[in-house]
């Protein structure tokens, strides 16, 4: 593949290679991009004159492929940053709005800072190995000294983690994803952030392997934190796309839980266990790519049809946009981890990975993180279910909460085709979980040293030496659920005879139900908001506006939200301090020629003393 000798620096030739891991990611990129492109063919009609499939989009997709086929650090960085810049260009499509510009800037700066951290990791590897070739790094990994390895790992984890949207370096993600055109959000959230995972896997499993146990523990902690906080923040959102963006944070957390378990198992030399965790992580990468792209496209269709993404103004779309609703429901069920769809399959594998890793850990402090991680994964799954009951239930069911929503029209054929492909993929990846896991064998074998055993149609989390692990045959469960669900009315009819159905108005204590009576998105999330208030720090603000003195209430305005903890206490504090320091340092250039001459004199005197 390296017939072309490109590269501006001496001895630095752009190189390409495709190994099993890269091939897996390339497949995800190509598959999802294909569906998204079909969708965008129709979606672009809503915004005439915008180059939705223009050069930036093509460069974006191509550079994502470039990232996974890059064979050396320089090629990788080129593709990596091209990907970031192209996606930035797409994010700021609506750049006249201040929020879009600010999101674009935050995104660009964070991704560039991340690139710098990645570059730092690469520089350390270069110092240690004298090469920029990924293959040579992998070959030299066992000889890497532990301090360098840990530094590389940490730099890579934070750098790639930023792209992946790992908490606490996630803040760009919920800003940038909602403001981008939806097909771009779909690609960014579905595919691009996964390349952060790609990088983490390369760093942790190939270039620095094998590391100490605390790496795995750290990744587990970050994964659990991202998963739980991500889903909690998602629950607090009313903007459908922002909600989906926070779910990306959550799912990255789930992927990291699998990867962390694998890292931990590998540090203990148990490659058979590591294979389960890694398979779970990779499988979830593909699954999240599929259903998150599907959901973002659905949100885009809703946005285009109703002009809003605010759940409080949606509702009733299941009747106005039945196909979109059905496809969105498939995505919702998949992301909520419901059998027999793909989300359940990979989460089940993650549970198993956490369990077997905890079981196999040699010490209590190494066993507890994966096991508690499993519990937090359960919490995440249940909260995700709550969130998508909210998203689908409030957004698509019940009564329309706004005129635009009441008059929404079904989206176009191209959009539906794009979504249908991915919805079908959700089902296929779930039912075909066992063959998918077998197909992931080469990639896991390359990274973890062994692959999960292929088990025909049944998925076995059964590492050697464990007698009774779990197994899962989603096709059969699906058959059972469907058969029994169909049998229930048949049996009831058989036993009790036919009955008639009457259609009447919903009971609302005697009045005709109004959209105002419906449970809102805010109200739906309230129990969870209160239960987890110490974590998410909700804020609310009630303004009572009076008329005629204080006797008559004209209007009550209620605003609620979540305190931006990370933004306020981490980033805002950091940037404020930076800017304050910068303002202070700007006194250097105080306009006084005398001061400038004094600097010159001071430099001269210092050098004179130094040269002595």
């Amino acid at each position, binding site marked *: 593949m390296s017939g072309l000798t*490109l*590269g*501006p*620096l*001496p*001895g*630095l030739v*752009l190189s390409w290679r495709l190994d099993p891991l890269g091939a897996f990611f390339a497949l995800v990129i190509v598959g999802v991009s294909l569906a998204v492109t079909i969708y965008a063919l129709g979606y672009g009609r809503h915004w005439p004159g915008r180059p939705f499939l223009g050069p930036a989009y093509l460069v974006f997709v191509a550079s994502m492929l470039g990232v996974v086929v890059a064979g050396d650090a*320089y090629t990788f*960085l*080129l593709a*990596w*940053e*091209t990907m970031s*810049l192209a996606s930035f260009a797409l994010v*700021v499509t609506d*750049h*006249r709005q*201040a929020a879009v*510009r600010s999101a*674009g*800037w935050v995104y*660009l*700066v964070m991704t*560039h*800072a991340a*690139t*710098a951290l990645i*570059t*730092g990791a690469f*520089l*350390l590897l*270069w*110092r240690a190995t*004298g090469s*920029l070739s990924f293959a040579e790094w992998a070959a030299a990994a066992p000889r890497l000294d532990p301090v360098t390895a840990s530094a590389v790992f940490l730099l890579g984890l934070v750098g790639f983690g930023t792209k992946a949207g790992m908490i606490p370096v996630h803040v760009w993600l919920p800003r940038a994803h909602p403001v981008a055109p939806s097909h771009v959000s779909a690609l960014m959230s579905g595919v691009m952030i996964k390349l952060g995972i790609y990088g983490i896997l390369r760093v942790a499993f190939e270039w620095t392997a094998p590391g100490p146990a605390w790496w795995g523990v750290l990744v587990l902690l970050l994964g659990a934190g991202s998963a739980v906080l991500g889903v909690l923040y998602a629950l607090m959102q009313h903007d459908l796309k922002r909600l989906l963006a926070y779910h990306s944070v959550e799912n990255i957390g789930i992927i990291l839980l699998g990867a962390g378990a694998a890292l931990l198992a590998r540090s203990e030399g148990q490659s058979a266990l590591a294979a389960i965790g890694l398979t779970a992580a990779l499988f979830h990468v593909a699954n999240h790519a599929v259903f998150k792209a599907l959901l973002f496209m659905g949100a885009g269709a809703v946005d285009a049809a109703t002009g809003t993404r605010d759940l409080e103004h949606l509702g009733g779309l299941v009747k106005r946009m039945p196909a979109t609703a059905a496809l969105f429901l498939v995505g919702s069920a998949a992301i909520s981890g419901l059998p027999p769809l793909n989300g359940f399959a990979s989460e089940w594998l993650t549970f198993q990975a956490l369990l077997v890793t905890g079981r196999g850990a040699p010490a209590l402090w190494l066993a507890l993180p994966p096991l508690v991680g499993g519990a937090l994964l359960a919490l995440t799954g249940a909260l995700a279910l709550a969130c998508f009951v909210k998203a689908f239930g409030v957004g698509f069911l019940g009564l329309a909460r706004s005129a635009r929503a009441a008059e929404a029209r079904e989206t176009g054929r191209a959009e539906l085709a794009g979504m249908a492909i991915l919805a079908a993929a959700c089902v296929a990846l779930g039912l075909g979980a066992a063959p998918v896991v077998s197909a992931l064998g080469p990639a896991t074998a390359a990274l973890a040293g062994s692959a999960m055993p292929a088990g025909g149609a049944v998925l076995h989390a059964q590492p050697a030496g464990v007698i009774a692990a779990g197994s899962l045959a989603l096709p059969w469960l699906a058959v059972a659920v469907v058969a029994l669900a169909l049998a229930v009315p048949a049996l009831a009819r058989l036993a009790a005879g036919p009955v008639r159905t009457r259609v009447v108005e919903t009971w609302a204590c005697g009045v005709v139900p109004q959209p105002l009576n419906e449970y809102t998105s805010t109200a739906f999330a309230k129990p969870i908001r209160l239960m987890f208030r110490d974590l998410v720090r909700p804020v609310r603000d009630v303004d009572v506006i009076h008329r005629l003195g204080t006797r008559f209430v004209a209007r009550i305005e209620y605003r609620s939200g979540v305190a931006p903890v990370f933004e306020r206490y981490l980033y805002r504090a950091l940037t404020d301090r*930076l*800017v304050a*320091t*910068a*303002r*202070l*340092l*700007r006194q*250097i*250039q105080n306009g006084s*020629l005398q*001061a*400038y*001459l004094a*600097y*010159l004199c*001071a*430099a*001269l005197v210092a*050098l*004179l003393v*130094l*040269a002595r």
Partner: protein
Amino acid sequence: MTLALLAAPLLAALGCLALPRAAAWASSLGALATLGLGFAVAAGTFGGTARYEAGGYVYLDALSGLIVLIVALVGAAAALRSPAYLAREVAHGTIPPTQPRWYYVWLQLSLFAMLAVPLLDNLGLMWVAVEATTVTTALLVGFYRRGHALEAAWKYLVLCTAGIAIALFGVLLTYYAAVHVLPDEAAALSWAALRANAAHLDPELMKLAFALVLVGYGTKAGLAPMHTWLPDAHGQAPAPVSALLSGALLSCALYAVLRYHLLAVGAVGGTYSADLLLLFGALSIAVAVPFVLVQHDLKRLFAYSSVEHIGIVALGVGVGGRLGLFAAAFHLFNHAVAKSMLFLAAGAIGQRYGTLRLARLRGVAEAMPLEGVVLLAGTLAIAGSPPFAPFASELGIALAGFAGRPAAVAASVVLVTGTVLIFGGMLYHVIQVTLRAAPANLAPATPLPFGWAFLALPLAALLVGGIWLPPFLTDAFTAVGAVLEGSTP
């Protein structure tokens, strides 16, 4: 040919004096001639062999060639852009119609001085040439006789004259050291002769001499903490002059520092001068950070970025090694191309908006698509974002640094950290400038002719340069690296 190269701007200056009406044409012709001859002269040096010309007064090696190339390119761009730019200033009434003629005279004279710096073998004459650049460009900086421009020119003049005086002391000390070693007094200031005999020079004396030259020429090159004139001068000069100052003048001054660096390496040995370059390079990067983060003027923003990049080049030379020196030469070239492009874009924007205050510039991407794209992409490029060429050169320096001694590693860490912070600051401002909605009361657009040649072409070159370098340039930077490594006599 070298003499022809020197004669071209001089003749053009005379032409401007003699034919006041056709001054713009004379200047443009001179610029074209300089461009062509500069290319030819530079190309002749990249083979890797050094040679004397013009009776021994001119010494040409790849390092001189690179500077000649940069001066010719940037100088030609500035001179060719000037007529349209000045015509607008005259149309706006900013300057009286009789004044441009003097502008062209000073411009061509400063081009002459800048071309002389890399060509002259004699260190004393080189000093004279550097001083001549100060005097001529100071007149250009103060060309708008507004208060701010005068203030900037005054500070520029005083600081650089003080600096250049210090450098002269360094030249004297070098002469002291040499005159004992080299019998011929004329040879005692010949750089090539000194380089050949550098090992015999008194190390203590050369240490002091290098310190003085570093502070002296460093002032001119814009190395912190002597950089303070730079943002004022770059900010207040007419845009083509800002481009010239940033792209060509700083390179010339740094060239002078590098010549002494080579002497110091030969005489003192070890890493004395390289460490000082690392120190000043890192300091320049660090000093630029706060001023880029909090900034109110577009051209000053780019001026501080110039401080940073000259620092990066100095740091690259300080790091050394084949890769580091190649990358330093590459970076010097990249900076000259990118920064002159950005200053020209800023000039066009400033004329359209009637201001350079960042708070009042908005919607450039809509109002002036070419300038907007170039501003945004060019800022990304100069801020060190892949896939543009400056990233490649910065990465090369960082790679060399990380493979080097502890001081180089530390400096590289400053490099990486500093560039990230500066990226954040520059992009914050430039995104606001380019992407906000444009004001409604903007003057109608009248694009400057050949905008693409001055803006799009360099941008494309920077983009390609991140992926592929023409063999011509690879050879050039390799040869410069070889000179800086000291492998050619």
